[in-house]
């Protein structure tokens, strides 16, 4: 079958279940694309042998009673995969081979899928352009020399370039949604606690969430269904029955109330983004939803809050990388302290070191109350803003990013400018809410732009339905020419 890799995950699963195509054929098609896609630098580790073996095993004894039968999937290199190198985009874990499997990937493999490879990302998930990875920059397939977004840049790039039928990323401040917006794909960050964090290299524990990145909303619902669920090994995991998101997916959004927060209209926002927002409102209105103006008064404080809380937690989570038990160890250092200092100085990149220093500083004696406690108080205010809003509306519509994908190197020397990429996505991480980014249009340079829908806690079905409806009416067409294959 030609152009298998153009199809959506849902279509591929359907074809496999109908026995119109074999898993081995699907797997080979993607392997070929990956081999041709080296310029994108979206893969850190390829698992072709493993994938082919698994695909053949599936074909020999197929099980169609699962959600992802015989599907090869590449995943962000933040998920620990048993026996397969897991680097977190860092020199520190360049040769780390976990002896365990993350709960999320275990869930996917239980549903019939298998590993195709590990995808590039910003180092330790810290970045918004996939320019901080030890393994080099990832290119946005939409346009050469353009960033794919970050930190799940490799995931978004591979997905948009048809190197994997679907994938998963992690989102701490927007790391799924922002790259989705930059690459014209769909990315969902679930409610905090819906997906297990066990076995995912931790960045900021109270903000990290794994989520699906897909080409269509149907695919997104399917992936979310496969990966989510209670995990007793994660104390922050929510104990509730799994939901059948794909079966309950519907275009019917009549009567749903959609909030438009005025504070998301920021100074200097490009006109195109404003127009996109209007397009989104129009679609929803036409489909029977009600548009309501709301206020989220503490929005402007979200980014500064995030840049206290996230680095603080990261500084502590990354303390375990000391060269003793696993990972990189420096040869320099005649005693333990020197070994630590050199290992961490040589093993971590600049952005990671910057954030560890910020985090260490804001937690340190004399500054804890002024920074960390203050940030946690503001975080409470931000959460209350949303709690309030959700008494009036069912979901909130905002732009996903303040701009389309920028050029590689354009913002690298200006950390603040880089941080501003997350201005629309960060508040939802602080409040633990679910949010999805869907591509709605292109800017004048033909770069994709996405809109974000934010939902109530555990309101993923509503978000998916709204996204499903918008997807069908937006007429968004991904128009990527595979320049990297030339």
């Amino acid at each position, binding site marked *: 079958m030609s152009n298998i890799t153009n199809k959506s995950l849902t279509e591929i699963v359907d074809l496999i279940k109908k026995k119109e195509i074999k898993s081995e054929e699907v797997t080979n098609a993607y392997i070929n694309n990956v081999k041709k896609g080296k310029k994108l630098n979206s893969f850190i580790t390829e698992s072709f042998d493993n994938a082919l073996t698994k695909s053949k095993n599936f074909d020999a004894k197929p099980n169609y009673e699962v959600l992802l039968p015989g599907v090869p999937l590449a995943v962000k290199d933040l998920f620990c995969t048993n026996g397969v190198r897991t680097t977190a985009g860092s020199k520190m874990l360049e040769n*780390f*081979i976990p*002896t365990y499997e993350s709960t999320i990937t275990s869930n996917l493999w239980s549903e019939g899928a298998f590993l195709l490879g590990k995808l590039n990302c910003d180092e330790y998930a810290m970045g918004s352009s996939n320019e901080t990875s030890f393994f080099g920059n990832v290119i946005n397939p939409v346009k050469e020399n353009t960033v794919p977004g970050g930190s799940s840049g490799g995931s978004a790039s591979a997905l948009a370039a048809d190197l994997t039928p679907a994938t998963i990323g992690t989102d701490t401040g927007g790391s799924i949604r922002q790259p989705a917006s930059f690459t014209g794909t769909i990315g969902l960050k679930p409610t*905090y*606690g819906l997906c297990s964090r066990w076995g995912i290299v931790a960045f900021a524990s*109270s903000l990290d969430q794994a989520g699906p990145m897909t080409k269509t909303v149907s695919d997104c619902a399917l992936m979310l269904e496969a990966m989510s669920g209670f995990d*007793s090994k994660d*104390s*922050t995991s*929510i*104990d509730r029955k799994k939901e059948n998101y794909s079966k309950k997916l519907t275009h019917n959004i009549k009567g749903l109330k959609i909030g438009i927060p005025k504070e998301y209209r920021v100074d200097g926002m490009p006109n195109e983004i404003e127009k996109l927002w209007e397009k989104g409102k129009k679609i929803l209105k036409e489909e029977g939803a009600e548009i309501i103006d709301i206020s989220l008064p*503490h929005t402007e*404080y979200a980014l*500064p809050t995030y*840049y*206290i809380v996230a680095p603080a937690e990261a500084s502590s989570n990354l*303390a375990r990388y000391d*060269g*003793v*038990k*696993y*990972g*990189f*160890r420096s040869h320099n*250092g005649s*005693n*333990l*302290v*020197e*070994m*630590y*200092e*050199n290992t*961490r*100085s040589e093993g*971590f990149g600049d952005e990671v*070191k*910057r954030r*560890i*220093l*910020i985090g*260490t*500083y804001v937690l*340190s004696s004399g500054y804890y109350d*002024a*920074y960390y*406690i*203050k*940030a*946690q*108080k*503001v*975080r*409470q*205010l931000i*959460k209350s803003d949303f709690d309030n809003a959700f008494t009036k509306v069912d979901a909130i519509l905002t732009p996903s990013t303040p701009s389309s994908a920028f050029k590689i190197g354009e913002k690298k020397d200006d*950390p*603040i400018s880089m*941080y501003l990429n997350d201005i629309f996505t960060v508040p939802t991480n602080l*409040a633990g809410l679910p949010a999805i980014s869907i591509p709605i249009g292109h800017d004048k340079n033909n770069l994709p732009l996405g809109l974000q829908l934010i939902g109530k806690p555990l309101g993923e079905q509503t978000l998916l339905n709204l996204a499903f409806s918008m997807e069908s009416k937006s007429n968004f067409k991904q128009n990527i020419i595979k320049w990297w294959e030339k």
Partner: protein
Amino acid sequence: MSIDKDKIKHTAKLARISLDENKIESLSKDLSNIFNFIEKLSKINTDKVKPLTSILDHSLRTREDKVTDGGIRDKILENSPNKNEEFFIVPKVIE
């Protein structure tokens, strides 16, 4: 808010990261900019607000007191840069 070099050196010490002298200058600039950005929070009055303790509303879950783990020494030591059959090995600590 300026983060001076001494503060950076002290913080780096706490974080066990060694810094190149020539990098401290640019770090100081970067961090000062970031902290200026963060300072925005001081504008807001939070006197009557309680700090967020958890986004989740469930209580801390407990587990039964059973031995369900351990006994995997090979796996534990496998990835260590320096070890023998029984121990992790690190440069000497001066006590």
